């Protein structure tokens, strides 16, 4: 088990082992639990750093464990997986700090952090999966690890939300499983290869390949919250803020979108799926989701549900980027995978702060909150402008490339979708900013907790500021030598050989 | 015919029809069997003298298929465990035995024990053997129990259990000893196969007699460690 084979496993174990240990810690052992959590997060970040450096220089990291006769549990660090691994490890560190602050004094924290680490392990597993069966394995593990977090509070409402979540995700998982097994019986292998491994199959299978594609995308679409499979996301907002922030805005939703990228790129291959004619319907579904998500967000009074519906529409950008069979749009989609994660997590952190410090859950209660919590609201504003796509911020980059890519391939109608959704974003975000900064506060806050001189605990304040700064940095330094754009172009060059 | 029966009449008729079809099928299957089939009688006769006994049935029971008999003793003992664990009904104190029962048992019990001994000995070369002798012994035991005789509480503990388990115990011990001496499971050396079989049969007769009598009694003796 030399170093190249051990690294992916170590990255996985860096969150799995602390998680298992935390399960057995009693409630009072706060110090040990926090140190374990943070140590795990930092260790994972360092390992990922080493891995990125290696992959950039062409090193080949691969862990292969026999799972079934003829099928292996394969963890491989290729350029596409690094994108998602980096995103989830950075955000896990930030969210752990936030969660420690947010759950101060609440019960069952050992159980919470145990499952929290399991979730991240599953997400990293999804990212590093080298073949479809490993992907399915970690994909289902993600469902099992997130369910206890949704029903963490133990209220009946939480249990109902959990049940809806399960109905959707278990059904999705089953579709994915059936598709994978059927694909395996046809293709004989499930290993991800750069331009897909299905183009070689003879024409008689094409019809079943289309059906398999529908099965796979439907299974993944549940977690990617494509309509009509998005129902569980708004209801899952009943979970504590760190869960909504990392999992339902980043980890779980991205796993679905990342899965669709994998299937289209490394299972079917871009050209082959275009020739099968499955990419256009996918693009239409993605576009419909973008518009539908934004429309529903308009009418949500609860802040977290509005953010949830905005996530539904934002994730569909990634799918749209992939579905428009063009290299430039693909770059836009891949880049948005990271940007949307960073921006959305900022907004959820701020929503969590407002709920925790002032007891604000409704948008209507946010009048004049800017004066009371200036730092949180600045982070919120940066996030909102990023979402709308205001130039210097990250959001603008991805929308720009998506638009450019669409024109380059002659899919003009996508421009209208992008423009329309930006307008809708503005329509449901700007009133919040206006109310927060310019309206007078309505007297007392619902459940105010004073934190002395500072507006709220530092553990709750630092994370949103960090992620807001990241949004800004990603926007400004997009085309820097080691920047995200260059990385995305490197991936697409593999997929789109002339 | 209870009123419940009338309600189920159609169900019973259907059942009768089904069972009639089953009987016809099985009957036809039995009739199509080859009319002349020696089965395993030739190999048994061929190996008879190597088995240490001359009665073919005892040879099969205690040598060729001794493994079945070992398990079967296990089944008998298991039934006793079950009956004792259920301890359904405390021993019912029958009324004191009438003169007829008393006289009969006083005459018959010794005679039955003698017949059991004979059957055990005759098993080697004539119809008889462990099970038949054991059941005759059990008959003597049942007769004794009916007259209200009970085992002395001193013996109803470990000694009773030892004797109940004797048959199976001896069988297992003999098997282990034979393996240690290099043979296979229950592979008697031809020279003293007959003696070994007799030893096993004697222990088995004692245990079967005691077990069957205990099963008749149906309840665990109160005292006893």
């Amino acid at each position: 088990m030399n170093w190249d084979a051990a690294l992916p496993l170590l990255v996985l174990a860096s969150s799995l082992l602390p998680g298992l240990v935390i399960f057995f810690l009693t409630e009072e052992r706060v110090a040990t639990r926090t140190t374990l959590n943070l140590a795990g997060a930092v260790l994972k970040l360092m390992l990922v750093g080493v891995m990125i450096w290696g992959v950039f220089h062409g090193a080949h990291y691969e862990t292969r464990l026999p799972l079934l006769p003829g099928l292996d549990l394969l963890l491989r660090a290729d350029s596409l997986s690094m994108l998602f691994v980096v995103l989830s490890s950075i955000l896990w560190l930030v969210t752990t700090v936030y969660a420690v602050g947010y759950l101060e004094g609440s019960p069952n924290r050992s159980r919470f952090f145990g499952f929290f680490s399991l979730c991240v392990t599953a997400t990293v597993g999804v990212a590093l999966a080298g073949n479809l069966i490993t992907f399915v394995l970690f994909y289902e593990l993600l469902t099992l690890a997130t369910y206890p977090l949704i029903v963490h509070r133990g209220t009946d409402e939480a249990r109902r939300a959990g049940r809806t979540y399960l109905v959707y995700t278990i059904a999705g998982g089953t579709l994915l499983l059936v598709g994978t097994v059927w694909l395996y019986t046809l293709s004989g292998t499930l290993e991800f290869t750069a331009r897909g491994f299905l183009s070689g199959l003879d024409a008689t299978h094409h019809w079943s390949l289309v059906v398999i594609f529908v099965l796979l995308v439907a299974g993944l679409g549940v977690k990617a919250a494509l309509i009509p499979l998005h129902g569980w996301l708004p209801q899952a907002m009943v979970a504590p803020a760190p869960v909504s922030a990392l999992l339902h805005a980043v980890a779980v939703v991205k796993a679905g979108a990342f899965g669709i990228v994998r299937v289209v790129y490394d299972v079917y291959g871009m050209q082959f799926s275009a020739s099968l004619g499955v990419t256009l319907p996918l693009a239409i579904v993605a576009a419909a989701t973008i518009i539908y998500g934004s429309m529903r967000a308009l009418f949500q009074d609860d802040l977290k549900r509005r953010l949830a519906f905005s996530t539904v529409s934002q994730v569909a950008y990634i799918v749209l980027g992939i579905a428009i069979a063009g290299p430039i749009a693909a770059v836009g989609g891949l880049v948005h995978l990271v940007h949307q994660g960073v921006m959305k997590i900022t907004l959820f952190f701020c929503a969590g702060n407002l709920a925790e410090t002032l007891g604000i859950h409704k948008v209507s209660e946010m009048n004049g909150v800017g004066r009371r919590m200036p730092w949180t609201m600045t982070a919120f504003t940066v996030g909102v402008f990023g979402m709308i796509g205001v130039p210097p911020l990250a959001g603008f980059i991805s929308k720009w490339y998506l638009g450019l890519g669409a024109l380059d391939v002659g899919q003009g109608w996508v421009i209208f979708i992008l423009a329309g959704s930006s307008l809708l974003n503005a329509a449901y975000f700007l009133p919040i900013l206006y109310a927060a900064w310019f309206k007078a506060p309505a007297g007392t806050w619902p459940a105010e907790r004073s934190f002395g001189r500072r507006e709220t605990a530092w553990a709750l304040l630092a994370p949103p500021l960090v992620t807001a700064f990241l949004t800004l940095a990603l926007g400004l330094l997009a085309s820097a030598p080691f920047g995200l754009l260059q990385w995305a172009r490197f991936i697409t060059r593999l997929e789109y050989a002339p | 015919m209870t009123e419940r029966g009338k309600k189920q009449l159609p169900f019973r008729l259907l059942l009768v029809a089904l069972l009639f079809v089953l009987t016809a099928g099985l009957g036809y299957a039995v009739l199509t069997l080859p009319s002349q089939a020696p089965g395993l009688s030739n190999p048994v006769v061929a190996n008879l003298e190597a088995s240490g006994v001359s009665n073919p049935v005892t040879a099969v029971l205690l040598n060729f298929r001794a493994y079945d008999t070992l398990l079967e003793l296990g089944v008998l003992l298991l039934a006793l465990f079950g009956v004792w664990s259920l301890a359904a009904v405390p021993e019912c104190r029958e009324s004191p035995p009438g003169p007829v029962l008393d006289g009969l048992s006083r005459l018959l019990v010794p005679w039955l024990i003698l017949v059991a001994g004979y059957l055990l000995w005759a098993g080697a070369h004539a119809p008889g053997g462990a099970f038949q002798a054991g059941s005759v012994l059990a008959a003597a035991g049942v007769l004794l129990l009916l007259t209200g005789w009970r085992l002395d509480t001193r013996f109803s503990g470990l000694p009773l259990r030892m004797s109940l388990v004797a048959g199976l115990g001896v069988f297992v011990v003999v098997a282990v000893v034979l393996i240690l001496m290099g043979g296979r499971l229950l592979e008697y050396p031809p020279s003293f196969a007959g003696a070994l079989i007799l030893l096993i049969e004697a222990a088995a007769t004692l245990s079967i007699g005691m077990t069957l009598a205990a099963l008749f009694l149906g309840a665990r003796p109160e005292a006893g460690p």
Partner: protein
Amino acid sequence: MSPAFLYALVGVGLFTLGLYALIVHAHLLRKILAINVMASGVFLVLVALAARTQGAAPDPVPHAMVITGIVVAVSATALALALMLRVRAETGRAELAEEPLE
């Protein structure tokens, strides 16, 4: 139609008779009797077919099997009777409650 086959057919008849009684009668003691009759039927088939060759000594292996079977049958009956008394003591009825087919 040598005697062997006649007794074999009687054995099959006993088997089915016992099966009918087992299904129809509710009282547990009757069910146990039915099981014993079925067992005797099977044993009759086993031994009867062993005596098919006229004149020659019958095949001893089925005889050994039947003796084993008889001892197994008696131990099963003893357990069943003890269990029936226990059911009687616990539920007050010597029959199993009508279990709706679930």
